[in-house]
């Protein structure tokens, strides 16, 4: 049975695009995801190292470890009823993961380390599809490593934070324009690739616990610009012609991709021993991403300037946790996620509109130290008619429009260990 499911799963394993907004992937803990990815005011296990470092100092055990990952099942389709064209994102696999560990040094100080993948995107359209002049495929992955400390200032108030070391990879391919092809009729295209791009950022937060039942939390994570410098750009299948401004070969490129700042403010309320409610409001400062500008090392190749004009966007997250049995905790949640993408700037590299996330999860306590966390996210995007209006051909803006529909389902599994 399990084998069959896995076989089936591989069949329709699709994409890691972007779950929620832009290329932010909100999958940073199976316990939190079960509760609608809330957590800024929840003190449960080591996942708190991500959601709000200030809360770590309230963890009951000396050592807490949480690790887990997700499999992403997603399908995005595009069609244009004006022309009868249709396409879909082809199968792809990527696995967001997290690893958190905390250690209580003394009564008022806890240290921790968090490793997680908050940004990423893998979108692979059918090669040479109708929007191939905008993107054939893109892959973006960033890993954050965050040493953390948490300080209890009083019974009611704590602060926490730490530096973030980010490392990222990016690869991207698109066709040169809508029609150019080489002498064999193969479409002319450009690929860019850079890996091991690093930069630093930071996070900080506080937690306020006015009563035993109520917690209020705030966390901020800074902007990190991934500056790809001297990456590799490959022009391929360009016809051998002086009339074409580029030619086959390799050059370098520089580009900056912002991993935007975000803040989260929220509360949790413990109704009784069994029932916990949490709410998070999250805002991501996507305004930073105004354009994707690719500067090529070869001065004869003009810069590629692709307006994005993202907007800051909000997420509203709700979750409940119910300790059903000694060995079993059940969770449920919902979130509403606004897209940072404005109408008319809907680029198929991040085909994202507003989404509603329905989550469920459970923790099974194997023994007093070890538990298994599982979660599910069903993300529902409305069918949407959109366009990207900033592609320019021969001095004319040529919109790329159509109807998009995305459905995403993400199961996750992890373990928590405490000592």
């Amino acid at each position, binding site marked *: *049975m*399990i084998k069959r*499911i896995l076989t*089936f*799963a591989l069949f*329709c394993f*699709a994409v890691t695009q972007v779950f929620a907004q832009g290329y932010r992937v909100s999958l940073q803990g199976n316990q939190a995801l079960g509760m609608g990815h809330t957590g800024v005011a929840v003190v449960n296990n080591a996942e708190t190292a991500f959601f709000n470092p200030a809360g770590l100092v309230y963890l009951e055990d000396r050592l807490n470890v949480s690790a887990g990952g997700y499999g992403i*099942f*997603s*399908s*995005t*389709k595009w*069609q*244009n*009823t*004006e*022309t*009868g*064209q*249709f396409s*879909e994102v082809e199968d792809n696999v990527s696995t967001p993961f997290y690893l958190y560990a905390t250690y209580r040094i003394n009564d008022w100080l806890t240290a921790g380390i968090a490793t997680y993948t908050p940004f990423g995107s893998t979108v692979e359209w059918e090669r040479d599809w*109708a929007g191939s002049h905008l993107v054939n495929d893109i892959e973006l992955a960033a890993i954050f490593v965050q040493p953390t400390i948490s300080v209890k200032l009083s019974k009611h108030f704590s602060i926490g934070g730490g530096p973030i070391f980010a490392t990222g990879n990016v690869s991207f391919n698109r066709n040169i324009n*809508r*029609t*150019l*092809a080489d*002498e*064999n*009729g193969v479409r002319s295209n450009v690929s860019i690739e850079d890996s091991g791009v690093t930069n630093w950022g930071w996070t900080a937060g506080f937690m306020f616990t006015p009563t035993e039942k109520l917690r209020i939390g705030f966390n901020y994570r800074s902007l990190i610009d991934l500056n790809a410098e001297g990456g590799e750009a490959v022009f391929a299948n360009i*016809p*051998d*012609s*002086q*009339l*074409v401004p580029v030619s086959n070969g390799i050059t370098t490129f520089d580009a900056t991709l912002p991993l935007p700042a975000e803040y989260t403010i929220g509360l949790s309320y413990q109704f009784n021993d069994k029932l916990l409610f949490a709410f998070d409001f999250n805002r991501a400062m996507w305004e930073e991403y105004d354009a994707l500008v690719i500067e090529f090392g070869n001065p004869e190749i003009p810069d590629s300037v692709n307006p994005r004009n993202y907007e800051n966007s909000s997420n509203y997250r709700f979750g409940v946790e119910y300790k059903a049995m000694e060995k*079993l905790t059940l969770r449920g949640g919902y979130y509403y996620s606004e897209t940072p993408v404005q109408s008319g700037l809907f680029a198929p590299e991040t085909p994202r509109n507003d989404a509603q996330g329905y989550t*469920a999860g*459970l923790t*099974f306590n194997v023994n007093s130290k070890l538990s298994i966390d*599982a979660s*599910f996210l*069903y993300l529902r995007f409305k*069918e949407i008619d959109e366009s990207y209006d900033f592609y320019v*051909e*021969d001095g*004319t803006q*040529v*919109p790329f429009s159509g*109807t998009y*529909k*995305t*459905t*995403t*389902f993400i*199961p996750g599994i992890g373990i928590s260990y405490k000592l």
Partner: protein
Amino acid sequence: MKTQNIFFLFATILALFACESEFESSIEDNEVYRTGDTDFSNYVSLGNSLTAGFADNALYVEAQNNSYPNILAQQFSLVGGGEFTQPLMNDNVGGLLVNGNPLPNFGPRLVLSTQSGSPFPAPFNETPTTDISNTVQGPINNLGVPGAKSFHLGLNGYGNISNVGISANPYYVRFASSPDASVIEDAVAQQPSFFSLWIGNNDVLGFATSGGTGQDQSGNPDPTTYGPNDITDPTLFAGVMSNYVGALTTSATGGVLYNIPDVTNIPFFTTVPFNPLNPADPTFAAQIPTLNNLFGALNQVFVAVGQPNRVIQFSDMEANPVVIFDESLDDLSATIAGALAPDPQFIALVQSFGLPPEAAPTVAGLLGVTYGQARQATSDDLIPLTSSSAIGQLDTNRVGFLISQGLSEAVAAQFSVRGITLPMEDTFVLTTNEQMLINNARLSYNSTIEGLAASNGLAFVDVDSLLAEAQNGIPFDAGVLTSDFITGGAFSLDAIHLTPRGYALVANETIKSINETYGSNLPMVNLGDYRTIATSDNSL
């Protein structure tokens, strides 16, 4: 592990729902478009080079993929259209071989090359690999045969390799179902549910591109007596067309017919102006006084015999028309020779060439033969693109001939400049009279085609009007598509056949007509997704 079982059950259920996104109305699942009152399941296309996807003076894979029937078939597939098989060439080069040897006049496609210093069409520098002795297995849906005239579609043996160079067509040899088959038989045998038929262009085009050197066969219904550049008898055309439509409609529930465009809408005839001789060109400007002096004597004769429209004069202010040979003019060679020979002014002119006065009658005779049916072109004449490499060039054969008549090399050369002192031959000009012959036949074909469409309830595409519109420009999402040679986007580098974008335009017009006729709502394609001309410096 009961919880694990629950976990996987839950996972399976959600995966089933989530795995595929579904549109409310999905194009892919045939939920968006209506078929209307016809059946696109088995579409067969018949025609000539335009139907085959011929472009840039060759047939090659990329162009075939963008043939209008292939574009139509792709849209038909949204309402139940089946596989559409084309007799794809072996390469993206074009050109044909027979038993491993190049077939003369079937070379590689043209590309826009900068090898000559400025962008100009030149043959792609690769070797053709498509051998007509390797036949393509049918059934073939796209039965477009480059070069076919109307009556060829019904000709048995038109695909017989042993008749190549005589009565067979090497393109049809590749995919004829048998050596004795005819195109129409191969079409009918597939019992098409829908067909398209666009034939008749070559019935006038050979005459037109040859500058009207063929015969107008109107009134002669026997095609076995026709030369390749002849105009097909309209009665013959009407007969064969009616037979084809009758044969195809026995199985088909629908079809589409196309008419024949006017040659004046094809850049092959509109790119070279009638007055290409520019006085701003210093070499030419320097000759103008001499030329006017030379033609002055001749012009007196034209005026004297009451044919002032034959006066040849060059302006140093305005663009000058080329001098052409027009077979429809009265032959004045004897009159010219007779009038000039005794004229003292002319004798003086002859002497100025370094010849004795006794040579005057010989020179007068030469001028008579040369200009007896000559005139300057008018804006009504069409100068084929082939003349662009000839105008203003020295005709070396002519130089040799004049030297043999006793003229010095310099004078011989002066009288041998094509289009200036040597009238352009018949092949380099389509005169108004020749255009009239073409149009008489063409308009008759077109009324046959439109009549057959109406009487059989078929869709009809007025390509004639469409290309007339393209002269002015047809807007699309990234600009305007026009018929201008090289830059306009609609016509390929041979100036007769279309680019993929041009074929997409024809496909869209077809879809419009099909939708009107059959009540379907097929979508049109986006012209901007189709390329115009191809560039490469890998050229000869």
